[in-house]
């Protein structure tokens, strides 16, 4: 059905990762690097609270790439920013947890890292087996500041605007390094040149003294990536890093990110609306709709066996090559509701072909755990609910009260 976009045959790297699946089954039992639990980030505007992120639960396993996909406005960027404590006024994380466990006693990966920085990075976390709840930290506080740019770093949508035009590349690179590492300016400079070369910037020495407005968008994004990986983070959040770039540059940047991720033990949370990119780089996929996660699973499962009606509709909307190419791609009927008047019950029910009247429009759908750590937030996979719904309205009311969290 979606052969062209199927991940397996896209690239060798992906295939290589697949080979490691056995290993990752084992690592799944370990604590994930990042676990977001029913996170709610709301924006308090004049017209009432906008529930941009409304109960997101997802996990980022160690050393994997997790893609968050969804239409614009579904809350995927806000989820990424919530992790970093970067949500700006009038937005606020109102509920939920962001469990960050940089250390799990498994030191194997750190030895493999060829980055010299890695030696100094595990200090307090080494002995501390408990995870930190990032959502509970003061977003302007010192604890979170130490994590930002160090353990977790971020690459943004607009590379040009994300670099200050007042300082040279060198100044911003060195600043970041020296904020988290004890290092002389000279050493930091040398490391900066190394990093720029690593992200594929030609004549790195010269570019160190350039300003952002003298570089192209693609170059700026490479610089941003260099700054992001400068301190050898455990997690890189990439928030639509290629949206503002032209198509050829997009492909190169994605290759670069995938390459860096493969080389290090770094995990990546890749936020995008481009399913092609997802197929290319993802290990796991998180599908979001209107501030909630509707489905999470491995990239193969999501593409070959989508469970949630929304995921199915999304995949059906991809134009196909080959047989029947002249057919118009299918569209999801209706429009995304305005976040201020979200429908009751399942947010997707007004557009869902399989919606069950009396169930989907009244009660929040349950999150159903499937094998292989897969999760779907849909009534259809809760056998009990579906059968009771078929029996009659009265029964539905009784059970929905019970299953509702």
């Amino acid at each position, binding site marked *: 059905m979606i052969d062209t976009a199927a991940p397996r045959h896209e690239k060798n790297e992906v295939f290589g990762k697949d080979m490691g699946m056995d290993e990752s089954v084992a690592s799944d039992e370990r604590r994930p690097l990042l676990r977001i639990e029913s996170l709610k980030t709301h924006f308090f505007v004049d017209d009432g609270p906008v529930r941009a992120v409304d109960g997101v639960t997802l996990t980022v396993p160690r050393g994997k790439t997790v893609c968050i996909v969804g*239409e*614009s406005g579904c809350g995927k960027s806000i989820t990424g920013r919530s992790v970093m404590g970067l949500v700006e006024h009038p937005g606020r994380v109102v509920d939920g947890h962001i469990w960050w466990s940089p250390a799990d006693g498994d030191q194997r990966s750190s030895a493999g890292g060829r980055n010299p920085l890695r030696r100094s990075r595990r200090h307090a976390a080494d002995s501390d087996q408990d995870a930190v709840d990032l959502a509970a930290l003061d977003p302007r506080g010192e604890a979170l500041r130490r994590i930002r740019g160090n353990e977790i770093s971020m690459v943004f949508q607009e590379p040009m605007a994300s670099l200050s035009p007042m300082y040279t590349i060198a100044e911003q690179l060195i600043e970041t390094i020296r904020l988290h590492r004890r290092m002389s300016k000279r050493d930091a400079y040398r490391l900066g040149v190394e990093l720029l070369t690593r992200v594929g910037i030609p004549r790195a020495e010269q570019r160190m003294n350039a300003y952002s407005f003298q570089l192209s968008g693609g170059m700026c994004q490479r610089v941003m990536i260099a700054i992001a990986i400068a301190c050898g983070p455990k997690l890189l959040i990439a928030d639509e890093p290629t*949206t503002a770039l032209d198509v050829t540059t997009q492909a190169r940047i994605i290759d670069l990110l995938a390459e860096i991720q493969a080389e290090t033990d770094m995990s990546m949370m890749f936020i995008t*609306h*481009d*399913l*092609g990119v997802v197929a290319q780089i993802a290990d796991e996929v998180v599908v979001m709709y209107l501030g909630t996660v509707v489905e999470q699973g491995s990239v193969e499962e999501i593409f070959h066996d989508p469970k949630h009606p929304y995921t199915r*509709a*999304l995949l059906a*909307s*991809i*134009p196909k090559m080959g047989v029947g190419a002249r057919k118009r*791609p299918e*569209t*999801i*009927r*209706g*429009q*995304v*509701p*305005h976040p201020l*008047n979200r*429908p009751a019950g399942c947010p997707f029910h*007004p557009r869902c072909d399989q919606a069950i009247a009396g169930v989907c429009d009244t009660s929040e759908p349950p999150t159903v755990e499937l094998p292989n750590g897969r999760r779907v937030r849909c009534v259809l996979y809760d056998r009990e609910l579906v059968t009771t719904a078929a029996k009659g309205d009265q029964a539905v009311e009784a059970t929905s009260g019970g299953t509702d969290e």
Partner: protein
Amino acid sequence: MSVQTTLATESITDSEPAQTAADEVAVARQWRLVWRAFLRHRLAVVGLVVMVIIYLVAIFAEFVAPYSATQFNSDYPYAPPQRIHLIDHSADGTHVGLFVYGYKAKLDPETLKSTFTVDTSNRIPLTLFAHSTQPYRMWGLFNAHLHLIGPKDGHTQVYLLGADHNGRDLLSRLIYGTRISMSVGLIGVGLAFVLGLVLGGVSGYFGGRTDTLIQRVVEFFMSLPTLPLWMGLAAALPSSWGSLRRYFAITIILAIMAWTGLARVTRGRFLSLREEQFVTAARLDGNRSGRVIFRHMLPSFTSYLIASLTLSVPGMILAETSLSFLGLGLQEPVVSWGVLLEDAQNIRVVATAPWLMLPGVAVVIAVLALNFVGDGLRDAADPYKR
């Protein structure tokens, strides 16, 4: 957002009940949206009310003022303001009603200065819609006797805001001054507007060399200290000119300097609009430049223009006040706030008659009100923002 082939989910519009409500808001006319956004600024609304009152006073100056601007009484030089009272407890009982107390004037034989003390035994009743003994010509069209407020007995003189050195009523002069000061602002901005709109529009629309040239001229004007030039030009006006001619000449001089700001705003908007797709579309549809400008581009930033017009009126008023204050702007018998303030130049005069600074308060109120309205309009001008 870039057009991606991936999430083509927004192409079909199924009308749903929830959707129609949102649509209604979306089709509201631009002006209604601007107005709605404007009403949210409380200060701007207050400013608007004050501005309307000021302009009403200016329009109906003859009726609002108790006396004419020139009527004087040499018995009362620098008579202080009289407070309006409502209740009087005098020997012969309690009186209720609008009234003021009269003065007892005492002439100092040495300095020849009059000093005034309040004489509570002399009660001068006031009334709304008073009849005066001397008729005035309303708008120069017809004779009338009616005043908004005045003494019941048309022969007596009251000074609600005090008197100047000739015993002229400051309140009346202030009200007549409102007409001149506010109209200088309006007419001056009107002239500047024509200049600024045309030159700025041409500059922004055609760009290139035309733009560079006009921008150089604008920069030139902006780099000059305006007041000395105004003074130089105003001083060169022949003293033989009548007051009306002088009035217009001063207005033109003020406008010569004020157009640059408007030209900048217009140019900036034109430059950014030129890149908009609907303008390109209009041009590709074969519209001539005139039509593109007036039919397609101008309507999309009229609200901006009105905002910056409102914001440049205060500058005009301040400029006129400064010029007249220095004695180089308007001159007697024309009465403007600046002309009135000219009397207050001397510290000795101000010390004996501090109420002569009141026209300054009028200037401040008018300028503040206009600034609030202008700011409110500017913020409301783009209803689609946010």
